């Protein structure tokens, strides 16, 4: 074999090796690109499916509670539901006290125990209007999503039996609040207590079991967070946050 042809073979073998190398590199990048694409597509599909399922309108859902007119409320305290606030008392009252509270929150139960009655008296006297901003943000503090289920039951009572039944139910659930970390009242128990507060069993059973106001509660929780509050109870007097133990001084 001549020296020349040996050189040719060498250089063509080198060229072939370089080409093979390039092809391998190209395949490698194609493969990586393909896997990246696959992962991205899978991620987007799963997200779309999950978020789509969450957003699907449920025929058992009610957009917003109303305040039922009942005989018990006739000529009594005026009430109004605006956005996520349940306003109770004279709209002309000089001051408005806003209370963000969660039925699972021990500090809220304590707040209600200490100032609930004096605030109610001030409202009856026409000195203040109370805006209840009920939220259900503490589901992780019970084993059965008590926070949002209890609120759903309270909204159901308001929706079907009116203000006085709602206030009775609200006060009852704070006084007999289940401890954090364990199971809260099951729906059966909530229905029993709703009936005791003056609601009609036939009207409340289905909305409580279906969690009819679940989407409203999600929006109410979100509204509170958008307003910059993350803690319950949060108490405002005419829109200004006040220390919860100073609220009675603030409304003087």
């Amino acid at each position, binding site marked *: 074999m001549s020296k020349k042809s040996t050189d040719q073979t060498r250089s063509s073998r080198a060229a072939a*090796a*370089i080409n093979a*190398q390039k092809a*391998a*590199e190209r*395949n*490698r990048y194609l*493969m*990586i690109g393909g*896997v*990246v694409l696959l*992962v991205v597509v899978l*991620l987007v599909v*799963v*997200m779309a499916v*999950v*978020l789509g399922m*969450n957003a699907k309108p449920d025929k058992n859902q009610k957009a917003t509670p109303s305040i039922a007119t009942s005989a018990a409320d006739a000529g009594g305290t005026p009430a109004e539901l605006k956005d996520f606030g349940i306003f109770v008392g004279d709209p002309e009252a000089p001051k408005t006290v806003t209370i963000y509270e969660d039925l699972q929150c021990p500090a809220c139960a304590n707040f209600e125990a200490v100032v609930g009655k004096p605030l109610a008296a001030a409202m009856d006297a026409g000195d203040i209007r109370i805006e209840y901003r009920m939220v259900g*943000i503490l*589901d*992780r503090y019970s084993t059965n999503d008590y926070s949002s289920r209890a609120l759903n039951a309270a909204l159901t009572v308001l929706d079907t039996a009116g203000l006085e039944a709602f206030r009775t139910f609200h006060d009852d659930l704070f006084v007999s609040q289940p401890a954090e970390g364990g199971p809260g009242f099951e729906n059966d128990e909530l229905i029993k207590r709703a009936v005791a507060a003056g609601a009609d069993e036939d009207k409340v059973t289905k909305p409580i079991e279906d969690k009819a106001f679940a989407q409203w509660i*999600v929006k109410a*929780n*979100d509204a509170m*967070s*958008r307003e*910059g509050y*993350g*803690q319950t109870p949060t108490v405002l007097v005419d829109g200004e946050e006040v220390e919860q133990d100073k609220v009675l001084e603030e409304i003087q």
Partner: protein
Amino acid sequence: MKDWIGLVARLVTGGVWLVAGWKKLFDLPENVRAVRAYELLPEAVVPAVGHALPFVEVTVGLLLIFGLLTRLMAGISSLLFIAFIIGIASAWARGLQIDCGCFGGGGFDADAASKYPVEIARDVGLLALSLWLVVRPRSRWAMDSLLFSPRTTLERNDDVEEEH
């Protein structure tokens, strides 16, 4: 030996991402509120970030555990940890009392100040593991080595696997 360190780094970081993301998936609205509580992102992007983050975390976690696209995932993991460290440090510096929402939850937490140092230390540790994988993504029992042929060089065509 280094391949074993890589495996441990993958399983620890990937495991943490998987658990953290999974726990958030079941209450996405809560995660949106947790993101908002940091008061760092504009409201226009808060819902999108709050909804997407858990999915991204689960994906990064799974792929790190399987050892698929290890370098890319370790890179995303590092960026996320840097973002979380900045977020927690800034919440701490501004005197916010929030649950970091790292594993679900979020919002106000009265004991927050005592937890911030631990959370930052944990994230720094996980960031270190992620960076190790960015520098050296090859590790034991990774799908990468099954799917992607190792880089070859003209001088040395021997399979890297044979070194073990």
